[in-house]
């Protein structure tokens, strides 16, 4: 990737994670019934990091993961490569599920994940936490907790890891403002 541009460093990602952990606790007035569910594959590490932060601030909450590839709306249009097998914590009925993903883009993965979660039970509420919101939504979905808003062009690629956030792309760069 030629035009790799580092947007956030490891410290920025760590601080954003801590802030989001506080926001999740604040929004829910504690952690009663809260569980974190990372989206396969990119959201799983972030769910674990948020879980560790929340445990440090208050107390541990259940952390799981969901693979939504069998609920996608583009099945048959592209090759499917599922991540690891879903591990949904017990007791989803009446809980507050915080879905966690690294990047929020079109919103289609989140829609598929909402459908997948619904197969396990009926949460009291579902919230969405993402490290990067890059815009270009194709569905009426918005995040509740955001690490960084990052305007991008469609042909750019956003990569989020625990070591930072980088944009690369074939476009004229300069996506972020």
């Amino acid at each position: 990737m030629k035009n790799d541009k580092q947007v956030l460093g490891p410290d920025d990602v760590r601080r954003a994670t801590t802030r989001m952990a506080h926001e999740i606790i604040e929004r829910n007035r504690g952690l009663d019934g809260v569980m974190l569910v990372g989206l396969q594959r990119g959201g799983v590490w972030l769910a674990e990091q948020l879980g560790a932060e929340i445990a440090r601030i208050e107390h541990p909450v259940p952390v799981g993961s969901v693979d939504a590839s069998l609920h996608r709306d583009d099945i048959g249009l592209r090759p499917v490569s599922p991540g690891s097998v879903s591990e949904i914590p017990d007791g989803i009925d009446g809980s507050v599920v915080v879905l966690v993903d690294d990047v929020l883009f079109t919103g289609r993965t989140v829609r598929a994940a909402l459908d997948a979660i619904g197969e396990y039970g009926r949460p009291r509420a579902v919230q969405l936490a993402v490290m990067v919101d890059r815009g270009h939504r194709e569905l009426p979905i918005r995040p509740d907790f955001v690490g960084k808003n990052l305007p991008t062009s469609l042909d750019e690629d956003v990569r989020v890891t625990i070591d930072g956030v980088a944009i690369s792309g074939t476009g004229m760069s300069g996506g972020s403002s």
Partner: protein
Amino acid sequence: MKHLRSIDELGLDGLSRLLDLTEHMAEVNRRPNPKVPALRGKTVCNVFFEDSTRTRLSFETAAKRLSADTMTFAVGSSSLNKGESLRDTIETIGAMGVDAFVVRHGSSGVPWQVSDWTSGSVVNAGDGWHEHPTQALLDCFTIRTALGRSDGFDGLHIAIVGDIKHSRVARSDIAAFTALGAAVTLVAPRTLLPPAVDDLDVTVVDDLDEVIADIDVLYLLRMQRERMREALVPSLREYTSRFGLTPARARRLGEHALVMHPGPMNRGVEMAVDPSELPGSVITQQVTNGIAVRMAVLFDLLGSGPRPPVEPRPEEETS
């Protein structure tokens, strides 16, 4: 992947891909509502020219859990009895809009013929003595989960016992087990070995007691009674005493060893103990896993990647 007709056609990569995908399908089956919308709008047609309970029901359940529509073609009440050819039958059903045919037939090679007559995918659910690839996949998945071997079967010793010659299950299992790295020993009387056994990557013995203590998996095949009439086996009693799983042999099995059988079982013949009392029996898991494996196969055929455009049939065939 367009068709699943044999294990060789699938290759090691395809085998590993399908076994990984099966883990996801097994997770779906453990959910309170074991159904996903993945194959909405697709139609799967079961065409069984031979009797079957578990395979047909297993495919039907698999298709329904993926939200595909299913049709079952019952040969007994069909126009085949009015002399319609197999080809015309397949083309007629295909014209109703079928995305996948699941075919079982008494003759080897029929799934390959059927795939020439349809633009849909073809799954071999057993053709003659030739292949039964989804059985091999579910056997591999059962061993993989029971022994925790998602990395392959290197170092595993599997004995397949019984009528190897007439068994499509054995043929597919040998291909799949050896592809994954297992050492396979065939245990059978000379009369029930396939003619080309020397070309297979297997060891052959004619005495089960020789290997029973050092195997990880004991795979018993169904002993078909008609073999007696063909004088390939002197008597059921003698078969049991030499090749059956008797209480004495069950005691010699290793502590971790699995006992498998493709069904339907002949109790008192190849299975001379009550399998529910064998700690290593995974025979019911085989049936359960069959659904997940067939979901993985149907999803891989119909749900992964764009379908290639349908090629128009040459005109010369129309009449």
